[in-house]
């Protein structure tokens, strides 16, 4: 493809450029207003770093950040373990059963968030009402938020692990077992290394989904706990606090840095491979 006509190149870069402008304009606007001296979101009144300072003193936002990150980490780890185990089981099923299970697995992925959120809320409310009649003092909170996140992450793990299991040569496991490996050793030394890329990318997807989720958290977190997106939503109904712009700018810059670092490491690895 290196011998493209120059006209095509110009056209292609123009299209991509327009797309990038469209995608990034709001992000740069947001970043710019995190340095704006007044709380206005359309008038520029001078440069300041005060929102960054206030951000680190704002208890509510920092707590929401901790909730968001801890839920994302715990939920993606738990979902990875459950999802990988489920994928192993589903892989061993007969084709008909497997197709049915995979269709059921796909429903939550395509299902609109709002429906998932509402159903979780109704389920958790039913559970708390039942427990209350038994005398427990319980209401929606961190536990329901976490359970909802673990549950909605599992299908993504299964979806990214299944193809790796399908590509795997099943005779390697048989060989290992014939040579005296226990089933657990077989899993750890044969299956796990083969499916690892799928497991890791599934976990990354799950983590991203958790961080980015608003709708499901909104319905399941109750009134005592807030994730960042729920906090932002509550603010947008009044007037947004520029601290939030500052926080997203920090997050955006860290994501960018992380990507650059990953790319540099990958480039170095490639260079090393060439040397040997």
């Amino acid at each position, binding site marked *: 493809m290196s011998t493209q006509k120059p006209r095509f190149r110009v056209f292609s870069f123009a299209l*991509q450029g327009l797309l990038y402008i469209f995608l990034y304009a709001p992000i740069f606007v947001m970043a710019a207003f995190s340095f704006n001296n007044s709380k206005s979101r359309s008038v520029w009144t001078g440069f300041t770093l005060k929102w960054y300072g206030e951000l680190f003193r704002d208890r509510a936002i920092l707590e929401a950040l901790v909730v968001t990150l801890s839920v994302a980490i715990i939920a993606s780890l738990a979902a990875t373990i459950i999802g990988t185990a489920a994928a192993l089981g589903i892989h061993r099923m007969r084709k008909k059963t497997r197709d049915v299970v995979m269709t059921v697995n796909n429903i939550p992925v395509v299902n609109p968030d*709002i429906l998932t959120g509402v159903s979780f809320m109704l389920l958790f409310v039913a559970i708390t009402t039942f427990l209350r009649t038994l005398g427990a003092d319980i209401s929606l909170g961190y536990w329901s938020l976490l359970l909802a996140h673990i549950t909605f992450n599992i299908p993504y793990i299964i979806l990214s692990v299944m193809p790796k299991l399908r590509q795997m040569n099943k005779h390697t496991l048989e060989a290992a077992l014939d040579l005296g490996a226990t089933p657990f050793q077989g899993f750890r030394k044969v299956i796990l290394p083969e499916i690892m890329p799928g497991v890791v990318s599934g976990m990354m997807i799950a983590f991203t989904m958790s961080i980015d989720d608003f709708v499901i958290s909104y319905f399941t977190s109750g009134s005592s706990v807030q994730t960042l997106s729920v906090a932002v939503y509550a603010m947008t109904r009044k007037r947004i606090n520029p601290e939030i712009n500052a926080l*997203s700018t920090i997050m955006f810059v860290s994501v960018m840095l992380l*990507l650059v670092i990953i790319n540099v490491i990958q480039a170095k690895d490639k260079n090393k491979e060439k040397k040997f």
Partner: protein
Amino acid sequence: MFAASFRLAFYATAICLLISYPIAYVVSRETPQVQSVFMVLLMVPMWINFLLRTYAWMSILENNGLLNKLLVLLGIGKVSIINTEAAVALGMVYNYLPFMLLPILTVLQKLDRSLLEASSDLGANGVRTFLRVVFPLSLPGVLSGVTMVFVPSVSTFVISKLLGGGKTLLLGDLIEMQFLGNAYNPYIGSAVSIVMMLIVLVCMFVMNKFGDGGEETSMF
């Protein structure tokens, strides 16, 4: 309300498709390096909370916002977009565009080049090759993109609230109002949810009918 939801979701899906297809097509013919940069740049905005990105659109589209300032500067004059259906549709396009681009790009990347050569060897010109070979082969990607944009567009309630100013009520808004909003009535909310779920299931069923044939054969 059903009509407004479906109309806006339909517009958003159509616009996404019209933007995505040409871009996916040219990017699929770029070098692998350009393609991987493209993928990364497409994914990065998704790491920023979508509420904030939508909120940033509010400051761009406002009557005294950045877009209007730019237009006045260029001598075109003001337009009022915020709190209209157009703003809601724009918000939908902005938020769900990657969901259309990625599946189309993936099918186009996998497209067998020799088919294009065969087509031109047999005397077809560029347009004919595109209509008869490229487009039909990319249909599975287009269909999955259409579902991935249409379903969240029909069910959103945040975008319509922020950019539509609460004037355009969508199905999502209706459901949200019944459970956490002012019009508390979980029974109506559940009923609307079930109807919406049925629509989504029908969509999924249709997708499976179309999609499976292509995917199974390409796998073996």
